[in-house]
């Protein structure tokens, strides 16, 4: 008889404390809809519904958080939540085809079963932003959590909590802009000031801006003051050049809010790989103010 069998054959004193919920177990979801977002077909938006209705309640999230999309047999990938807390009955993620998991995901079909683990990380500081002007600066496919934020702020129940809302959003070309229908709808509203831009286009019918995000921000974005915050999310190069522009516009470093990304596995601060300085991007972030980022090694 092995030691293990011997141990299990005797009456044991319960040493184990009450069972803990397993944060590595994903909620099972079904792919409900897939939308191709960009002309190069590398960006698709996936709409998921929870297999167990109760899980949707457990998955209560805030705009700016992310989740681990989990495909059995393939792996997991951290993705910002593109749907908004005010949208019920589903969650949405826009995914760029890049690595092993995302490529597999791009080949999946409506009806397939996979998992979602989260919500993870912190979110844009909505309580702090109440009663303030909010400038949103986004580029490329990093617009996902910004979409979530805009939908959240424009919700009739929330809109009055914020003062002016301005948006600068850029992509390489018109065909690469995400959520085109919504962009056009927002463009027509008067309670949000949209500045859509593309790096370049040969479409003669293009009636919005042409140019990179930083100069468009400089020209079109409102001045910063004690009552104004800027949320910036985009590729590193865009963040790098937007930062001095925002400074010039008068945004303090602790009024500039960034969303970082790093290689992650667990998403819950255990596995250690996304650490920069003493912060863990997955748990203490991904949302940081520029002031916080300045005090941290540039390892993202």
């Amino acid at each position, binding site marked *: 008889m092995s*030691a293990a069998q011997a141990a299990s054959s005797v009456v044991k*004193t319960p040493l184990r404390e009450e069972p803990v919920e397993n*944060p*590595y*177990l994903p909620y099972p979801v079904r792919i409900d809809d897939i939308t191709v977002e960009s002309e190069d077909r590398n960006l698709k938006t996936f709409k998921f519904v929870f*297999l167990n209705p109760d899980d949707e309640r457990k998955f209560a999230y805030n705009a700016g958080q992310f989740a681990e999309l989990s495909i059995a*047999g393939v792996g997991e990938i951290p993705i910002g939540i593109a749907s908004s807390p005010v949208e019920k009955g589903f969650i949405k993620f826009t995914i760029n085809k890049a690595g092993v998991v995302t490529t597999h995901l791009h080949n999946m079909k409506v009806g397939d*079963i996979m998992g979602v683990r989260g919500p993870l990380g912190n979110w844009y500081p909505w309580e702090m932003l109440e009663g303030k002007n909010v400038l949103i600066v986004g580029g490329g496919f990093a617009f996902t959590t910004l979409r979530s934020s805009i939908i959240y702020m424009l919700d009739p129940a929330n809109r009055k909590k914020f003062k002016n809302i301005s948006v600068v959003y850029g992509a390489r070309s018109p065909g690469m802009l995400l959520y085109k229908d919504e962009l056009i709808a927002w463009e027509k509203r008067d309670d949000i000031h949209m500045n859509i831009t593309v790096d370049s286009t040969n479409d003669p019918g293009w009636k919005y801006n042409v140019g990179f995000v930083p100069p468009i921000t400089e020209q079109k974005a409102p001045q910063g003051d004690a009552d104004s915050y800027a949320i910036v999310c985009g590729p590193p190069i865009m963040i790098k050049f937007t930062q001095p522009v925002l400074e010039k516009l008068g945004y303090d470093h602790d009024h500039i809010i960034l969303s970082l990304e*790093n290689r992650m596995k667990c998403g819950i601060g255990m*596995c250690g790989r996304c650490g920069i300085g003493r912060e863990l991007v997955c748990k203490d972030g991904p949302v940081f103010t520029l002031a916080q980022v300045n005090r941290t090694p540039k390892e993202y």
Partner: protein
Amino acid sequence: MKVIKIDKSQWSQTLEKIRGAYRLFGPVKEKTFHNFTELSDGQSPDLAFQNTRLSPKSLVFPQSEVMLNYSLDEADADHHVPKEAPKDYSPRAVIGIRPCDAKALALVKMNFDTDQYKDPYWLNLYNATTFVGLACDAPCGTCFCTTAGCGPFSEEGLDVLLVDQNDHYVAKALTDKGTQLLQKTGSKETTAAAIETAKIAAEAKITAKIETDNLRGADMMALYKAGLWEDISFACLNCGTCTFSCPTCWCFDIQDEVYRKKGVRMRNWDSCMFPIFSVHTTGHNPRDSKLSRVRQRFMHKLKYFVDKYDKGIMCVGCGRCVRQCPVNIDIRKVSALMNQLGSEARCAVKGS
């Protein structure tokens, strides 16, 4: 708390009594080194060791561990839905863990047991285990536990402290778990007086030091940007020996593996020394040089951790990385350099 005396002539019988209620683990000699493994029936741990080659962290944090199971067969009702892998969390006891290794587990617990999330695999094993520590009478020349917030008789993280008194052991219960285990032995009680004397003698034997007193107040970015890292990191091979042998290193990787229609999600130890550890899907690697990886390891242990938890350094002075580094990179030297720099670069705003 209960203190008992176990005659060495009664040692194996005592172990068998404990075995009635616990799976036993302990150090076993393999060729020239000791390692922790499960003890088979009748096997006693070999307690004549200085320190094991690998730390016993694998007892609660196996190098490879299955987390979830799932079926990929669409004929199954719950295909593609992972389930927690069944594990044996019956009571276990580690006999002869060194105080430094037990303290290391207590440090690592801060990572796996947080207010927000609990790691079930690590915690279940940790909670199922009773740690019977063996006080260290003959520390290695490379042990520097007394200056690393630990010591040869340190009790932190232990449930029982076992002290070798030539012809007998004195066992002192430190927690309720420890008392429960000692009750199984049926041995007679004694006093803890001898422990104190032995402790003083053992602590006096430790001469190696790690200097850390200025690290807490030092400016993180000044240390990060300091010029000392090229010299420190030059010899490094970026192998994972230091991290894998370290009792306080906990980083891991999560992998899926599929065998026909069944699959598992498992985790494996990982190391910040490996370039792939931090590389993004885009190919961008925030720590793309040897220098930045070596810096990450030492900064994490000696600065980031210190700032994050305010519980001292993430090192217990077991000396394994010093002894096993193939190119002799020595954390004591690195810490001394950082500490010296720390005294020059005090932080303007404390704790910022």
